[in-house]
Every structure is written in structure tokens, then in C-alpha cells.
């Protein structure tokens, strides 16, 4: 078996995808040239969706790549890395993405809510992975850095923990300054 010692590198993630329950792309970010053209990307996404949408297992090997995934209601989240990559690192990215979105969408992770907050999604992924390097894996930090306007959320809709969280955040910041 070819088992090359991994070249130590920070480049871990090859792609992050979010598909809807028809397998259509809601979000896709490819970080290297494994699938250079839009056509190849679409074909890959189709393949990935066909292989994963019926099972609720969280990991698969597809086209020589490790794919970790997670589905919620009508959304499918995928993080893709090399087959030699540490699967748990990819899992950490996936969990961070999902948990961040879950917080930003107030546990309402479904297609419609996501589409109404696309800019939040764009910013969150930008904070989690930069050019294939894991930038942050703590959902709290990600949500904080995305810093969507707080006034969007009426106080009544916030849960107690969220209020506490934001209060804690505020205090921390006032101390840091």
C-alpha cells in the first residue's frame, strides 16, 4: 500500500459544500485544483449527493477523497479533504460550521433561514477556513467574529443563554479595550 508520510502542512480542507435536499448547490467553496471547472464540480456534487443523501452516516470515501457530512432537515453539509488527512480534523471543521450556523440562525438550520442569511454564511465560512487552512474551529469565536448586527435580533426572541452569552461577550470586550 502506498502510505506516503504526510507532508506536514496546514492545508487541510479541499472543499466546503452545502447542498439542498434536491442536491442543488447552495454554497460551494473549493480550495484547490482537484475540480478546476464548474462542470467537474457540479458532477462531483451530484455524485456526492447521490451517495450520501439516503444514509445518515457521517463519513465516506468518494473519488479518492475523504468526505465528512451532516444533514439537517433540508440541508446537507460537506467538508472534503485528502484521503490521507486526519478525519477528525475535517470533522472539527464540519462541526464548527454547523454549530456556528446553528447559533447564527438560532437553532433554525434549514434552507429558508439559511437563504435569508446568506451573507452570514459567507462570512462564517470565511472565518472558519481560509484558502484550505483551518482558521478557527471554535463556533463561539466564529459567531463573535462574524458579528452580525445584534439589533437584528429582538431581545424577546433570544434565549436566556444567548443573552448571557452576549452580555459576557460585551463585558469581556469592554475589559480588553
Amino acid at each position: 500500500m502506498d502510505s506516503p508520510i504526510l507532508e506536514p502542512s496546514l492545508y487541510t480542507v479541499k472543499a466546503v459544500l452545502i447542498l439542498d435536499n434536491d442536491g442543488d448547490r447552495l454554497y460551494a467553496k473549493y480550495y484547490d485544483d482537484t475540480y478546476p471547472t464548474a462542470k467537474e464540480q457540479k458532477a462531483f456534487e451530484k455524485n456526492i449527493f447521490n451517495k450520501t443523501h439516503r444514509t445518515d452516516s457521517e463519513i465516506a470515501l468518494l473519488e479518492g477523497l475523504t468526505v465528512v457530512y451532516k444533514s439537517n432537515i433540508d440541508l446537507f453539509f460537506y467538508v472534503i479533504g485528502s484521503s490521507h488527512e486526519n478525519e477528525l480534523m475535517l470533522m472539527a471543521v464540519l462541526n464548527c460550521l454547523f454549530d456556528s450556523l446553528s447559533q447564527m440562525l438560532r437553532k433554525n438550520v434549514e434552507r429558508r433561514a439559511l437563504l435569508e442569511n446568506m451573507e452570514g454564511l459567507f462570512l462564517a465560512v470565511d472565518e472558519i477556513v481560509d484558502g484550505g487552512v483551518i482558521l478557527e474551529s471554535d463556533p463561539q469565536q466564529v459567531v463573535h467574529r462574524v458579528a452580525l448586527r445584534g439589533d437584528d435580533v429582538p431581545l424577546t426572541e433570544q434565549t436566556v443563554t444567548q443573552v448571557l452569552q452576549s452580555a459576557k461577550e460585551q463585558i469581556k470586550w469592554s475589559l480588553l479595550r
Partner: protein
Amino acid sequence: MIKKFDKKDEESGSGSNPFQHLEKSAVLQEARIFNETPINPRRCLHILTKIIYLLNQGEHFGTTEATEAFFAMTRLFQSNDQTLRRMCYLTIKEMANISEDVIIVTSSLTKDMTGKEDVYRGPAIRALCRITDTTMLQAIERYMKQAIVDKVPSVSSSALVSSLHMVKMSYDVVKRWVNEAQEAASSDNVMVQYHALGLLYHLRKNDRLAVTKMLNKFTKSGLKSPFAHCMLIRIASKLLDETEGGHDSPLFDFIESCLRNKNEMVVYEAASAIVHMPNCTARELAPAVSVLQLFCSSPKAALRYAAVRTLNKVAMKHPSAVTACNLDLENLITDSNRSIATLAITTLLKTGSESSVDRLMKQISSFVSEISDEFKVVVVQAISALCQKYPRKHSVMMNFLSNMLRDDGGFDYKRAIVDCIISIIEENPESKETGLAHLCEFIEDCEHTVLATKILHLLGKEGPRTPQPSKYIRFIFNRVVLESEAVRAAAVSALAKFGAQNDDLLPSVLVLMQRCMMDSDDEVRDRATFYNNVLQQKQKALNAAYIFNGLSVSIPGLEKSLHQYTLDPSEKPFDIKSVPLATTPLTEHKTEMTPISSSKMPDKLTPSRQDIYQEQLAAIPEFQGLGPLFKSSEQVQLTEAETEYVVRSVKHTFARHMVFQFDCTNTLNDQLLQKVMVQMEPSESYEVIHYTPAANLAYSQPGSCYTLVRLPEDDPTAVSCTFSCTMKYLVRDCDPNTGEPDDDGYDDEYVLEDLEVTVADHIQKVLKPNFGAAWEEVGDEFEKEETFALASVRTLDEAVGNIISFLGMQPCERSDKVPENKNSHVLFLAGGFGGGHDVLVRARLALADGVTMQVTVRSSDETVVDIILASVG
């Protein structure tokens, strides 16, 4: 949710995608409002989101429209809306490669990057580094250095990661930031630690000493970040791999200690690193394996997957190390994640005993249809390996494979199965009939031309020799009726082989051939006509030459010869014997399956080694009249590996001459060698007629010189000869640094090892797919037989190996493999001798005290027979 309201008009129905029917031109039209004052942040934000969404969907933006939108967007920097600003950064990054003149935002970004708003600083750095080139980098260097050591983690991480991206582009500038990165590595923030470590390693990876120092420092200080720990493990295992030392170094201890880390990610990384180390002992593996065993029962699917995948790799090299986990693996067979179950089963197949095979095969067949093609190929490969291990189980496997063959699947999957069945047929003669029957059934409904032709070829080769050849005819003829041209042509060839070998089938085959002669395709018609005429002659020799054993010339060689012939028209007919024979590829009997990755490689006909040599030699004027190159030998070392000059030789055999090619390398950096040639003193009546020296031989640049030798004409049996070789040259000392040589030099010489020419140099390997037919074709006119005793050889295997390498001929009919527990064996060898004479050798071997060998040689020329027998004796 104010946004929801102003979007309502766009939404046609609930649950639909508001971005679904976006028109690029309409969105770009809308982007005009970027220019309105005052800026409406909400609307602008929405439009930017739409633009990024379109880019994300793979929409193509032309340079002009992208540039226009980009310039309009730059106005939005006037707004202080946080989200809007952040979306601007994203737009900049997305458009960096599409739009022109993106650098105009440099100053805005630099301002944000050094500003007070922490939320802006990190993203601004990343956007800025995305649009910066080497020349611009100098200008922001000062800010980057400051940002790397910034106390805000997001700023520092952004700066470090961006630096890492820029290492590829401007290594020299980023290298100067090493001290700052060093400082960042001791940060409290886990991500900053990880990014700093990654950057430091990339900057230092070519400096072994620095990497070692860095490792020492960090392994002692103990990093908090699990990611950084994984990185350290990878660096350490790479370093261990390069040092090739034993595993008792502190680096190995570090990796082992990580097996006890609190974080699973780190533990797994360490276990995987140990497993992947080459030549790891069972004792060193044990702790890693037991950690993986624990993971097998984890509730997390990813962890179970990772563990069983790694165990699968261990099982390839050290099946015994994994047997301890068999129980845990058994539990995973029913895992809901089919990938995990498959991996568990294939691992068990490797570690399990013969008795468990049946049960496991049953388990796999229950879910094989649910797994992806990649894993199906893995399963087939495991089965193929198993068949070699337990040949007696072939009937179970064959059944299973034929079931898999009936399922749906892609080309790679089907090919793996077919290859596996073919290899079982070749290994186990008793499975031949069932295997062929399964394959026949498969081609009845096979959409892959390559596989169909491959199977038809196999049927043609094996079918006629089965007890009931007639039953295959129907399958083959069905192909002629139903398939594409390539398959029809292959079917006609296969039919001809049945007709040639089975006299009672001949009349029916001839009838079928005549029907094929009316085919609509030229190639099919041509083949049918040709075979029909050959078969009607009813001559064994013709059948053997034109039906069983096809052309054995090298295809590129034939192409070149034909091209030459057309360039230079003459009355003489083209002589096929002037074409060099095909060198049998060394991988002919490779039993291993090719890995999945290699199947993507283009199946291009690469010129063989010999064709490359032919080209090189033809470029030298002295060698142009020698005719086609008959054979090139393997490289022979004429010096020890670690000497001043390294010389290797290749022997090229032509019809009446030999050319010795000497590839010389000068390993002294203070010498320049000139006029290098190798003087040769033959022991027999060989005659050296020309030396072609290498003009210059500079330090570590290989050069070639040649010696041309004429073979003795009066004595064709003198095939072997020993040459004593001396390398002669002019030395000019030179400056090791500049390579500037002195004006004058002196002559010197260097004695090389002797070079031997043996009978193998005059024989080209030729593969005769049907040895029996070829044997009859040559006939017994010049047959000679002699018996030898090989006293020094202890086993049949050894004897077979010796004979093959001594005569340099091609073993046929897989006779190079001696079945186990037998004390007699027949070896069939085929080759082509010098002037285009086929030589066939049948060696009967019997194992008593030593090995007794009865050699029978047939050839179309008597001297050749004598030469072979004389050289064996």
C-alpha cells in the same frame, strides 16, 4: 427581521429560493445604486450578497463587467456598516482574479488593517494579502510584522495564514518574518499557535537542523492546541523517516507519548503516524493498535472509520498485529455506515483464517450493493489477495465474483472483477471452466468494449483447450451479430482460434467466417477473409504462425521501419524480419491489482526502452550502417558504487556487430575529463573496430561513450566473450567552485571490471501465447536433445530462474511458475535468435538429489540449436 420585509416582493412563494432566478445582468444593473449618496447599507449588502452568490454558483463574469462592479463597490468603503464592510472584503477576495486593477483598494485595506476596529483587522489583512504581489509586499511588510505579533488572536492568525499563502509567491520576503512567527508560536491562543507552527515549518523545512531544534523546543514546552500537536507529530514522523535511524530516538518517544493525549484527534494522528512508519516492529505497533481498537467502539462514526481504515493498512503488512482486534472488527460488520462495515470485512479477510472465509463472504454479499464503487474495488482486491492465499477457496470466490459481475457498477469496478476472475483462472486450472462460463455470461450484456475484447481474447486462448470447446462458439458468435466493430473483430479472431485447434469444429467455423465476410466493417471483413483463407489450407504451421502467435515485433519499430521503406522505394518487398522484436514488458505476469489511482493514467503506447536506445544510436554517424537494433541488455555496473568515476554499460546487439554504451559519471568536482573512451580487449576473435569518445565529462553530468565491435563472421558459434575494459581520458584540473578548468591536462586511465557477452545477448524474448502450436510450426527438422545434471541447484524454482536468466528467453504458458510439492516440471522457453530465427526450448526438470534437466531445442536453423546446447553445457 426587517430584511425579510424588503425581500418579500422578490419571493414568489414560501420556501422558494430568493436567489433562484437571478440574472447576472440584472444584478449588475442593480449594482448602480452603489453610487447613490447617501449609501443605503441594507440594499447594498443585499446586492453584494447576490453577486457573491452568483460567483459561488459558478457564474462567469467577464473582465469588463467585473471591473465595473468592483470599482462601484469600492465606494462602499465610505459606509461604516460592519457587515457591509465585511462583505466588501469578501467581494475583493472573490474578484481578485477576475477584475482588473484590484490593487486600488490597497490603501483602504491598509487603513482597516491598522485601524481600531478589531472586527475589520483580520479580514482586511486576508483580503489585502490576496491582492498583493511581490513588489507591493515590501510596502506592507512593516504592517504584516506588527500584525503577526498582535495581541488579538484573529489578527495574528489572519496575518500568519496569509503569510503562509504568500510563501509560494515571495519566499524571500516572508522569510524575514521568522522572528515574529517565533514570538506568535508562544501565544496563549491555540489557533495562533497552530498557524505559527505551520508557517515556521514551511519557512524552515529545507533546513534539517532548524526543524530539529524547533521540534525539540515545542515537544518540551507542550502545546495546548490539538491541531498544533497533530502538526508536530507529522513533522516528527517525517524527520524520523528521513533519518532512517532506529526508532529509539526522542522523536519516536514523543509520538508514542501522544498516544496518551487527552484529545482523540491527537491520539489518532499519533497512532496513524506509527502505523505508517516503514519497518516498524510488532512491539512498536502494539500500543498504536490497542488505541485504534478502543476507537473501534466509539460512538462517533468518523472515529470508527478512521480507526478501521488505519487497522486495514496495518493488516496489509502485519496481519498478526491486528488479530487481537478481530472481535471488535466483527462487531463493525453490521455498522450502519457501510464504508466502515466494508473496511472491517476486508481487514478481517486479511487477518482471518481459512475457515472464516465462507461466513465473511456471505456477510459482504448481503450489503455489497449499498456501497460505493471505490469500496467495491477494495472488496474485490481483498478477494483477489485472498484467492492467492487460499487457492482452495476459489469456488466460493468465483460464485461471489460472478454475482458481483451481474450487479450495476462502473468500469473500474467491472474491470477489477474481470481481472480478478482471470487471475483465478490462471492460478487454478480446475476453476477454468466455471470462470470462462461466468465471463461468457458477462459479455452477453457488457457495455465496456475494452472488457469485452479482453474476454474474447481470453476465450480464444483458453476455450479451444477445454473439453467442450463447442459451447463457447455460440457466445462468441453472438458478439459478431450484436456488438460494435471492435468487439466484432475480436470475436472473429477468437473464432479463428477455435477453428484452427479443433478439427471437428472447423467446418462450422468456416461457415461462420463466411458470414462474417459480409460484415459492414472493413476490419471485421478483412480479418474474416484472412482467417477463412488460412483455415482452408488446413496446415498446422500456417495456423500457428498466423492465428495463434501473432506478430511479435515492436509496434513503434514497425511504424518506423515502414516509414523508412516508403521513403526509399525499392523493388524488394518489405522484410518483416528487419523490424526489431518486441521486448516483452516486465510486468507481464503481475498478479497484484493496479491501484485505483493508476487507472486514471492515459493508456498511451510509450516507446520501449529499446526504441529509445535505437533512436540515440541512430544519431551517431558511425553506427548508421548497422541495421536495426536487435537487443539492448540491462545496465551492468562496471565500477563500485562509491568511486571517483561511476561507469555503467549497456550492450546493444546488431546483426553482425555489437555496440557497447558506457554511461560515465564523474564524481570529482575538481576535475574535468575530456576525450573519454573505454578501451576493450576481447578474449575471443571479436574485433574492436571503432571508439566514439565522450568529448567532455564535467562534474556530476553523465556522458556516454561507445565502442563498436564486430562479431566473428567465420565462427557463428562464438557467442560468448569476455572483454577487459580500461577507461582512458584527459584530465584537466579545475576550480571546484567556478568549474573553470586549467589550460593543460594530462592523460590518465582507470581500470574497470570485465564485461561479459553471453548467449543471452543474442536472444530476444518472444512471447508465444500458444507454445504447443509454435513448437509444431518449427518442426523437428533441427531438433536436438541433451541431458544435464545441475548438481549445485537445490530446488526446481531455483533451476527455472537460472535457466531463464542464463538463456534470456521468454517463459511461455506460465511455465516459469513451479507448482508446489512437485518434483518434476516442464519449462517452455521461446526467443528469437540473431538473424531472425525462432528458437524454442523445452526443458524437462526432475528433482532428485540435484536437478536433472533434459533440454530439447528446436529452431529453423541448425547452428542456432548447436549454439544453445553448447552454451548450456
